[in-house]
């Protein structure tokens, strides 16, 4: 494999741009003032962008982490002999979770969980489960039958088969599902701001409510960069997790 020159890496430059804007947005005040005269203040200042990002990333991490752990666990369960009967059921439930618009989930969750981050976490979790389950099932079922037959015939236990054969060979496909799920969750988390969660969507909704276009732009650019950067980092992780000896 060819080692990429770090200076030529787009991931690095997107990362630098993201961090610079995250901390340096107030320094761009004159630019926004000049572009949108009459909007005061020109830069969102109800909280630092770093604090918003931290909260945003925290929501995605908790919801995405839970969706990943539970999604992979369910996929492992339905691809074992004991859980095979549940395969269709689990896929259907995950698909139903996906058909609920996250905004509707928020509306339904608020009465039960109150305002704040919790309804957002529930919505992101439900929304993120499907791509993870679908990919993990596809990855585990894609392990060549001959390889599994040989493994069993040589006396690997069920656990050894999962750990040494199924999971390493399915890892790239599983990770691709997590990547899609987390990238979508970063975008979707912004609507959490409508029910009181602090996210990079907060300036967007403030801007929409107060007719302050610069806030919308500031929030949207940071969310977009965050999503792109995360996607790029996952791409690197995928290359790193690619089992040796298999074509990428």
């Amino acid at each position, binding site marked *: 494999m060819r080692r990429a020159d770090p200076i030529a890496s787009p991931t690095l430059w997107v990362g630098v741009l993201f961090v610079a804007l995250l901390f340096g947005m107030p320094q761009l005040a004159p630019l926004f003032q000049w572009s949108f005269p009459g909007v005061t203040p020109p830069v969102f200042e109800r909280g630092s962008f770093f604090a918003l990002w931290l909260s945003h990333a925290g929501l995605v991490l908790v919801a995405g982490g839970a969706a990943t752990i539970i999604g992979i666990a369910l996929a492992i369960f339905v691809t074992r002999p004991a859980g095979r009967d549940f395969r269709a059921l689990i896929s259907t439930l995950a698909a139903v979770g996906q058909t609920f618009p996250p905004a509707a989930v928020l509306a339904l969750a608020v009465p039960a969980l109150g305002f704040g981050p919790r309804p957002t976490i529930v919505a992101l979790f439900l929304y993120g489960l499907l791509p993870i389950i679908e990919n993990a099932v596809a990855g585990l079922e894609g392990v*060549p*039958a*001959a*390889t*599994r*037959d*040989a*493994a*069993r*015939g*040589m*006396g*690997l*236990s069920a656990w*050894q088969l999962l750990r*040494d*054969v199924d999971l*390493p*060979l399915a890892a790239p496909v599983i990770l691709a599902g997590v990547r899609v799920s987390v990238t979508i969750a970063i975008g979707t988390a912004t609507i959490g701001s409508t029910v009181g969660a602090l996210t990079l969507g907060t300036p967007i909704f403030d801007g929409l409510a107060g007719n302050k276009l610069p806030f919308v732009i500031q929030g949207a650019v940071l969310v977009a960069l965050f999503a792109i950067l995360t996607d790029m980092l996952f791409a690197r992780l995928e290359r790193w997790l690619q*089992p*040796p*000896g*298999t*074509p990428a």
Partner: protein
Amino acid sequence: MIELEHISKRYDGRPVVDDLSLTVPDGAFCILLGPSGCGKSTTLRMINRLVPFDSGAIRIAGEDIRDVPEEALRRRIGYAIQSIGLFPHWTVEDNIATVPRLLNWPGRRIRDRVTELLELLRLDPESYRRKYPHQLSGGEQQRIGVARALAADPELLLMDEPFGAVDPITRDALQNEIARIHAATKKTIVFVTHDIEEALRLATVIAILERGRLAQWGAPIDIVEHPASAFVRDFVGGEGSGLKLLGLRKIAERMRPGESAVGVPLSADASLREALAVMTERHTDRLPVADASGRAIGIIMLADLVR
């Protein structure tokens, strides 16, 4: 010794193996032969408990296989299959070392064993041990599959059409290898194939299966000379069975010692089939025969082939 006693197995009420009894002696090269769907693979996979059977008993060296934990049983039995099933994410060395590692052999012993097996399969250990399966040809992959099956020095080797997916030249080479390994190690081998030529070439004993039942059991030559039923006669080759018979007999059995003829001599170890082929090629009815050292010891005549 492997004993199958009144084994039966049904899938959805349809019998796939029907009251099958066999005794494979130690050191035998036993071939389960039959058309597809005759239950030969199912039978093989019952021996290492990959397929459970409904009734009957299987004993290896007198021990009922259901008294041994599945995984422990399988680690004692080598297993090689047509689609090979090498672990694509492991090197050749790791693949071969699978069972020794499961058995917690020390690293040094595993390394030496891998070297020994690669040499046995005529692959250069130093250039092959670090390779990944996708870097190997089909024939090389199957050699690694055989090496992996032999790794922990199992008492018994199960092979399910191991050479079914390789080209004829490679298959020929692999058949020679396994015959040589069998002769050298005297391991008991149970081998599934639908290829009658392969069976006649390798087996010391053949079990012909017909719809889950034993149609005939015996040495290759008995089966060709005295087929027990029309099914067996058709399966071992109908009109071609005469040629197969010639293929199973050596020139030494029919030659006329002391006489001499012109031409390049054939080895006394060659089959009568080869003698016929060479006679046809040379437009002659007699050929000189030589011993292993190349010394002329007699002749074989066309009439001797059909005696």
